[in-house]
């Protein structure tokens, strides 16, 4: 059922990772990603991985969450690794028919798999430990300086806030409209691809119509509560950064340096 889709992925908790300032968490995640891409060999990649493993341990999240976040990207992992496996020249290890699997191919392929998995787990750790609202706030504040060059930081954040707010409402609504059309004999789960596409019309049109109506009413309600864009706005919750945030940032930078240093092994 459509209701089973989980949105936001936030996993509430009380760990030091949860408590970090969301802005720092975003920056640290970015550093981690850079770390992964600047690693040239298995040893430096190992250092980057160590950073992830430590962060994950501190977050006290159940391991199965990370496995869960892998599920949607399994096909991507398989395809990339196969491509690397078959199309890199070098010393042949196994030869099947016309395809040669090379030492280099195996190496690159394994390297890519580890890097991809680390990449997804790292960014999942950010969304698992930060509520979507806090994340939005953090993005707004980080983009704030860009407002000087007319970048709509506040508007962007407001759109994200509203989208988050209305996702559950719209899921519920879609469910209701689907049931209503099924009751009128709509066939939603059988038929050819085109037939299924056509069967979506009775669901999409009412959904659009109601979204427009909601948008209009919401805009009016916002105006009635003195909404006038981002200027002069204050916030109920202000993000505050402290010593632990800087400590975490420094740790991330140190690990990055370590990765860069360990890269020399490639050239030895």
């Amino acid at each position, binding site marked *: 059922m459509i209701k089973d889709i989980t949105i936001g992925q936030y996993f509430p908790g009380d760990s030091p990772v949860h408590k970090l300032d969301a802005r720092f968490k975003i920056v640290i995640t970015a550093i981690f990603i850079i770390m992964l891409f600047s690693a040239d060999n298995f040893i430096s990649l190992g250092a980057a991985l160590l950073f992830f493993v430590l962060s994950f341990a501190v977050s006290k999240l159940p391991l199965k969450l990370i496995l869960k976040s892998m599920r949607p990207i399994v096909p991507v992992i398989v395809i990339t690794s196969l491509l690397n496996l078959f199309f890199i020249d070098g010393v042949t290890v196994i030869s099947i028919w016309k395809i040669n699997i090379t030492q280099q191919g195996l190496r690159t392929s394994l390297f890519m798999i580890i890097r991809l998995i680390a990449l997804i787990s790292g960014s999942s750790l950010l969304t698992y430990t930060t509520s*979507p*609202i806090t994340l939005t706030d953090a993005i707004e504040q980080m983009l704030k300086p860009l407002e000087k060059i007319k970048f709509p930081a506040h508007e962007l954040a407001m759109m994200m*806030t*509203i989208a*988050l*707010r209305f996702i*559950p*409402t719209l899921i*519920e609504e879609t469910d209701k409209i689907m049931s209503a059309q099924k009751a009128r004999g709509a066939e939603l789960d059988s038929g050819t691809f085109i037939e299924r596409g056509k069967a979506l019309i009775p669901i999409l049109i009412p959904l659009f119509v109601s979204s427009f*109506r*909601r948008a209009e*009413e*919401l805009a*009016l*309600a*916002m*105006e*009635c*509560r*003195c*909404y*006038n864009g981002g200027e*002069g*706005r*204050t*916030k*109920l*919750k*202000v993000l505050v950064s402290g010593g632990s945030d800087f400590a975490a940032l420094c740790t991330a930078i140190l690990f990055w340096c370590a990765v860069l240093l360990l890269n020399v092994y490639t050239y030895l």
Partner: protein
Amino acid sequence: MENIIKTQDLMFYYSDISDEEQQEQEENAPKAEKKMIFEDLDLEIEKGSFTVILGHNGCGKSTLAKHFNAILMPCGGKVYSAGFDTSDEEKLFDIRKRVGMVFQNPDNQIVASVVEEDVAFALENMGVEQGEMRRRVDDALKAVGMYDYRLHAPSQLSGGQKQRVAIAGIIAMRPSCIVLDEPTAMLDPTGRSEVLKTVRRLNREEGITIVLITHYMDEAAQADRVVVMEEGKIILDDRPENVFSNVELLQDVGLDVPQSTQLMYMMKQNGFDADTHIINEKEAADFLFELFKRQVN
């Protein structure tokens, strides 16, 4: 008594063409395109009162309410809200801060995904300082009895609870008046009574003026004053018991009367000396008890 809202010769119409176009072709302006909603409407709402505006769908009651906090501008005449002329654009936020508005669909007026952040929305817009904001948000949530739910997501709440959050979002602005446009139309009986209790308490304890737009008779029966609208005109304006005694008139314009009043009315038709100013079950039971005592012995 002082007025919080006053309309003077208020005229409003919807027209197929926009105002600017209208001005351009002023001379040969086609008057026929206009859909007149009301003409020469005079209404005063006393400060601190609890007024219900009653009427069936399309009678103009919601259009009128939208004039009270400058969502709609009069096409003729004046509307004064909290002492300001609503057509004065400079005073827009002064008006909206003082005369708050709650709408019918609770889902479509909650902005944030956490209850307390939604209540803070207006204060954030007004640039209220953080400490003061925290206090006001907590006070507002306590005033509607939703403080325990401050960290919930709106989607976890019932209709009545959502509507109370919407009310809290308005009272956080510390308005002197709240206009509620059919706030109970989409709620179940439990939600309706929750909202009505909240509104009555805000009126009595906090002294906030309430203008409640509804088509539910039992809600109107609890007000100080009931204004009945039909086709853009005020046809009755009095205390509820006096309004409801006009059983035939109300039924003619497609409205109900409370069953107690209806019972009195039917008894009168059956030759009893019944009082159609009775609007609730307690008064009706008292009346029948007296009647029985007189007739049975």
